[in-house]
Each structure stands twice: as structure tokens, then as C-alpha cells.
């Protein structure tokens, strides 16, 4: 087990290097001089332009710049963005907002999604099952920004049930954005749970468990769910990374000052260092989540063993 984890960790290094270099190259390959537009409708003063180029090594070839960037990274220094603001604190400030938002979204996904999935799997073809099917299809069909704007308008502005924007990222403020962010995955999670649980419920060992006279709760909760949840866990684990990276729209609508906004802004401003640093962390989150998911299989299904 320990050796397996170590091996997986070592595999992360080349992945991280490759990913950051690709991002770095892509951001800087965007056309246009980073200094164009920096001084509005007039060209920048020569001295300013020179200092700027020197500071951001703009005259070096790309690989050299990347190595310099890595060198600083190894020293734990993420450098400054073009406005002279250090990047590290920006990321440090943005991540908690997004992690909180994503965690709440995941909690909703697990609670509501799996809950509904189990209910509909038990009562297949009932009225609830049909209603849930319709609602989940609507949620899957609607783009996030539609769900977001509509909910914000009715719940936030018209009826004042919940705050319209989440400038402070309190749990209360984040309820609506978390639901919006989770809505799509929530719908998928409930469909996957329903399908996979329904399948498991027909399995021989479940019939055996029933025949032994175990309570229904124990049959479903312990025997069937453990097997049935494997695909759901895979989905939710992978989703956590996606939620962190993909919250741009939701964060924009609800004014959450998180990673999505930071990346979006940094790309627009050609802040290569910022983008690369944020994405490096995103990649790391993805890799760690996939490792965690793999380890969870072993916990859920005793037949799975890692050497």
C-alpha cells in the first residue's frame, strides 16, 4: 500500500512538469506584445518598457524563461504579476473561496445526488422516479449560467431568500452558488447511482442477503451500496477537480473571488506566471483526487488490493 502510494506520487512529477510547460508555452504563445495596451492609447515610456521587459525576462527565449520560472518556483517564489503584486498571496487568497465552494458543491452532490439516486433505485418506475428523471434532465440540459442567473434573480433579488452575491464567501452566501455549481453533476450523480444500484440489487449476493432475513436497510446500505457506489465515487472524485477549475462562470455570476476568476483574469491579461502557477496547483489537485479515489475503492470493496 505504502509503496503503491509512493510510486503514484513519483509519477506526478513528470506530469506536473509537462503540464506546466505546456500551459506556460500556450499563454506566452498568444499573439500580441504584453506591453501593448499597458499604457492605454499611448505607447509606454521607453524606460518603463525596458524595465518591464527586464523584470519579466521577455527578451529571453521561451525555454529559458520557463527554466527561470521553475528556478524561482523551487525557491518557493512564484514571482510578481505585471502590476507588481506578488502572485503567491493572490493564489492563497483565492483558493480557500473555491475549495469552500467546491466542497459545499460536493457535499450537496453526495447528499442530494446519492440520496435521490438510492430512493429512485429502490422505487423504480414510481411517480418519484419519473419526476426525478424529468428534473435531472432539465438540470443537465440547462447551461450553468442560465441556472445561475435565474436562481439569483428569483431567490436573491426578487424574494431575498438568499444573498444575491457572495462577496464574503460565508456558508450562507455560498449555498446558492454551490447548488448551481453542483446542479449538473448532481443530476449525473443521481442517474449513475440509480443505474448502478438497480443493477447491484438484482445481483445474487443481494438475494442471498435478503434470504438470510437481513433487514432491508442493511441489505441496501451495507451490501448493495458498497458495490453500487464505485462508479459514483469515481465520478465525484474526478468532479472535484473539475469543480475547482470550472467554477469560472459560477464565480463570475455570484462574485465569488476564487480561482476561476483569478485564472480568467490572468489569461486575459497575459499574466503567464499567474496562470501557470494556478494551473500547476489545479493539476496537483486533480492528481491527488484521482489517487484518493483509487485508494477509496480498496476501502469500499475488499476485493480490490494495491501492491
Amino acid at each position, binding site marked *: 500500500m505504502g509503496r503503491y502510494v509512493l510510486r503514484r506520487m513519483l509519477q506526478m512529477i513528470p506530469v506536473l512538469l509537462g503540464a506546466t510547460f505546456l500551459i506556460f508555452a500556450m499563454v506566452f504563445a498568444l499573439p500580441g506584445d504584453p506591453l*501593448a495596451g499597458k499604457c*492605454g492609447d499611448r505607447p509606454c515610456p521607453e524606460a518603463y518598457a525596458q524595465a518591464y521587459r527586464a523584470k519579466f525576462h521577455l527578451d529571453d527565449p521561451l525555454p529559458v524563461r520557463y527554466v527561470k520560472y521553475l528556478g524561482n518556483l523551487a525557491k518557493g517564489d512564484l514571482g510578481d504579476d505585471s502590476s507588481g503584486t506578488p502572485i503567491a498571496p493572490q493564489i492563497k487568497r483565492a483558493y480557500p473561496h473555491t475549495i469552500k465552494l467546491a466542497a459545499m458543491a460536493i457535499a450537496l452532490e453526495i447528499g442530494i445526488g446519492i440520496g435521490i439516486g438510492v430512493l429512485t433505485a429502490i422505487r423504480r418506475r414510481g411517480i418519484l422516479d419519473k419526476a426525478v428523471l424529468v428534473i435531472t434532465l432539465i438540470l443537465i440540459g440547462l447551461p450553468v449560467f442560465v441556472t445561475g442567473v435565474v436562481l439569483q434573480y428569483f431567490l436573491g433579488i426578487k424574494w431575498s431568500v438568499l444573498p444575491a452575491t457572495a462577496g464574503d464567501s460565508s456558508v450562507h452566501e455560498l449555498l446558492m452558488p454551490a447548488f448551481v455549481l453542483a446542479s449538473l453533476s448532481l443530476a449525473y450523480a443521481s442517474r449513475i447511482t440509480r443505474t448502478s444500484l438497480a443493477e447491484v440489487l438484482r445481483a445474487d449476493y443481494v438475494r442471498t442477503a435478503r434470504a438470510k432475513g437481513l433487514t432491508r436497510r442493511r441489505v441496501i446500505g451495507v451490501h448493495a451500496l458498497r458495490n453500487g457506489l464505485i462508479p459514483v465515487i469515481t465520478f465525484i472524485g474526478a468532479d472535484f477537480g473539475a469543480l475547482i477549475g470550472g467554477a469560472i462562470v459560477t464565480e463570475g455570476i455570484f462574485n465569488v473571488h476564487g480561482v476561476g476568476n483569478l485564472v480568467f483574469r490572468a489569461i486575459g491579461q497575459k499574466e503567464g506566471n499567474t496562470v501557470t502557477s494556478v494551473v500547476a496547483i489545479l493539476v496537483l489537485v486533480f492528481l491527488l483526487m484521482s489517487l484518493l479515489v483509487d485508494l477509496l475503492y480498496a476501502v469500499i470493496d475488499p476485493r480490490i488490493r494495491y501492491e
Partner: protein
Amino acid sequence: MRLEQMRGYRAVAVGVAGMLVLAGCGGGGGKSSAQPSSGASSASGQSGSITVSGCRPQNPLIPSDTNETCGGNILDQITAKLVRYDAETGEPSNDIAESIDTKDAKTYTIKLKQGVKFHDGTDVKAKNFVDAWNFGAYAGNAQVDASFFEPIKGYKDVSAKDSKVDTMSGLKVVDDYTFTATMERKYAIFPLIVGYTAFAPLPDSFFADKGAAFQKHPIGAGPFKFVSGDPDNGYVLEADPAYDRAGKPHIQKVTYKVYTSAQAAYNDIISNSLDMLDVLPTSVLVGNVYQKDIPGRSFEKTVGQFQAIDFPPSNVDSSYDNPKLRHAISMAVDRQAIIDAVFGGTKTIATGWVSPVVSGYKEGACGEWCTYNPTRAKQLYDEAGGHKGPITISYNTGEGADHGPWITAVCNSIHQVLNAECDPTPVATFKAYRDQIQSRKMHGMFRAGWQMDYPSIEDFLTPLYSTKASSNDNDYSNAAFDAKLKDAGAKTSLDEANLAYEMAEQMLGNDMPSLPMWSSKLIGGFSNRVANAGLTVFGTYNLAAVTLK
């Protein structure tokens, strides 16, 4: 110029219009504004705290290194300058200066009021101005606003590449509260421009580390002092109780909250959890939707932002060179109809090349050439022999820049009147767009915005249309016009200078270097907690006037 930071949702497109979609980070205070005012009141009778929508500064918070509105707005509240511009009219009046005297418009003797203090308790003395201006101009400091010090004698030496000279010969400290500023040549409007942020004095502590500490915690002598904040989370400013000159605020505390979109900020205005928003989203201006959402809670202000469409330089594209063709195109554009259709009437139609809010503005400088006249336009167009190939107008899109609709409307107007093909040509980003213009690779006509730095007619003429000027993107060159500007600059009284500038402006009509379009009116909103909310002519919050109900 000061860039107009497009916060992703500005309809006004100005200098750097559309520079970025700002997605700021953090701004606390969303809830504090929903609570009743803090009731904390300073000894000077100021009380209450408000939240306003802000945006993310692009440069360090150093007066001479800030060239866009996000940082400029914050620094403007913190710093005091020699003169202060009236919020309503833009008229300058002495602030820290006791007097600014000159006999020849070349050497100015500046006497300071005594007892003016920086927020750190030190006195504002003559050397604080001289050192600050030298710091801003010196090439070694690479300040973005360096060119503002150009009129001062010795600027050439300090701004030269790798220059070791770091003080301008034109600035001399006479005693603690007097200094002289000598210009390179006669420059009558000098007393007008020193109210710009770049001319703010800096405290002694600034120079110890070249502003490293200052940019995290700016210190000025203005009505508000810096409390806390950073680019992502917005800023908190508090009224300085010791401030006792014009522009003393009634409120005690203001929080600049960074929003990720205009819509988010607007939603908070509707629900009264934000107190002031300077620009409403374009979507709610059309059909005056906002008047239903926030009845009686909006304000409007004509600001010194100007929109024009430039003709390309002759050596890039000579097909537009014939003045008759230029006049024809200009007269074919129904400006008022476009303003009404696209902007819900929120622009002031241009009758010349200058914004109506500045000292020296005179209506009608462009005369008939800027008046919609389809028959005359068609006639001139035919006389000029039409235009070879389609007429194109390029503009920047994306990042919230909203020029597409109005450029399309302009093209449509030209097409209908002249029966000529006209193609709007979008360029993906503001950076790429400016890149094209600066390297003179623009395609046909192109959009040009301008945001004034100081409220003078000169700021709309010299930088844009004098030969080889810094922002003369269409390489316009007219010896008579240059001579007139020089003549205006050499006048000793402001009125005479303005008169000469007006005459220069009228000369532009013959050559039509650009099509003047309109000046912006900003429409903003406020919550039910405040009264007297509004903007200054620079488009910044008028924090001196706002009061809590």
C-alpha cells in the same frame, strides 16, 4: 492619459477600453453595508461607512506609476495636489498651493499653504513636490506616467535612456514652502495640469525604499487615508479628521469592493447591499430597464471621455486621403440616432474634438462636417470619386468591450447614405488591437477612445493631433495647426491660451483626421441608504458630497 479600465462590462470605451475583464478578488464588506451605519463618528462630525464598487488596479499604487482608473480612483482620494478640480465642473482651484504665479508662463513660482500634513503627520513641504516629480520623470524609476513631466525643463536629460541625471534642472526648492518650476518653453496651462494624480507630493518615507512600502500603504495629504486592502480584495479608506480644505467628506469610511461583473454589482445595488456603482451594465440601459429596477436611485454625469473614429495614416492606407471623402463619411453618420438606438441616449453628441466638460470647450468646432446631412454627404462622396474597395472600421472586442453594436450601426449609416460597402472589423483583444495600431498595421479606419487627464482643451488636441505626438495614431501632421498650438501654449493668460486652442481645434475640420463621435455620460446607481450620490467629471465617485440618510 489615464486608461479607462474596462471592467468587463463597460459600455464606455475609452483609452484602454476593454483592456480586461476584471474579475477581482475578495472584497469584504458585503454584509457591513447591509447593516445600519456603524455610527462611529469622528471628532470632526463625519460618520457612517459606505461601500462602492471598485476594480483591480493594474499597477503599483504609486501616483506616477498609475495610469488607469482602478488605481487612480483610490490614489485620487488619498492624495492632495497643488490644485483640486471641482467635482461638478472640473474647474481647478488651489489646494495645497497658496499661489501659483508666473510673469511669462515659463517660470512658475509656487507657494504652499503651511500646516498641510501627510497622513503620517509630516509636513508637506516644497521638497516633497520636487522630489516626487523628479522621481516620476527619471528613466531609472521606469514610471508609467513619466511623460507628464515633459513640459518641465530638464525632462529630456532625466528621461534619456540609461541617464544618470535624476533631477530636472527646471525644479528648484527656494525655501520650505516655496519652489519654482521652469518650463522648457512657454506653457500657459501648467497650473491646470498639476491637479493630476501623477503630480501628487510624496512623503519623505517614500524615498527611503523607492516606494516599496508606500505602494502597500499609500500616504497622501488628501481627504481620505488608507486603512487596508490589496488589488484583489478592494480597499478600505477612512476620512482624515485633520483634513480641513475643500472636498471634506461627510462620510467617515468607504470600502471599495471588487466585483467580478457589472451584473453582480448591479444586483447588489437593487438589493441595497452596495451603496454606489459608477457604471450600470449596458444591458439595463437599453430601454431604460434600470429605471424600473431602481426607481429614483440612479445618477448620470457627462465625463471627460471621448470617442472618435480615426482615419488611417496615409502611408498605411492612402485610400482615405481625400478630405472630401472624409467629410462625406462624417456627414453620412447619424450620430444621434445611433446614440438613441445603441446607448439609450446616454451619450452627448460631439460637435468638435473636445469633451464639453473641460476648460476651453466651445461648441461647434467641427461645424457642418459633423452634422448629419445625407444629401450633401452623397454629393461629396461622388465628387471625391467614392472609395476604392469597402470602407472598414476596426475595433477591439472581447474582454467586455462593447463596441461591436455601435460600430455596426455607424457602418450601416454609411452604407445607407453613401451606398458604399462598409465592414466592421473586430480585433480579438485590446492588447492585439493596440499592438496593430502602434506598429501601424491597422486596417482602414479604427476606433479611438480618449480619457482626459486634466480638464483642459489642450489635453484633447496636443497628444492626439500635433505632429509626432505620443498618441497621434493617425500620424496627422499640419504645420499651421502645430504653430497654433505652440502659439496657444505661449500665451500668458489661460483665457487667451484657450481661445488660441479653440482656433486650432477648428482647423482640424479641413483635414478631418478623425470622425468625432460623442462624449460619454455615465449612468450609475445608489442604494436607499445614501443621498447626494454622484460622480465627478473624471468619472470617479464624488465622495465629498455623498451623505448617509
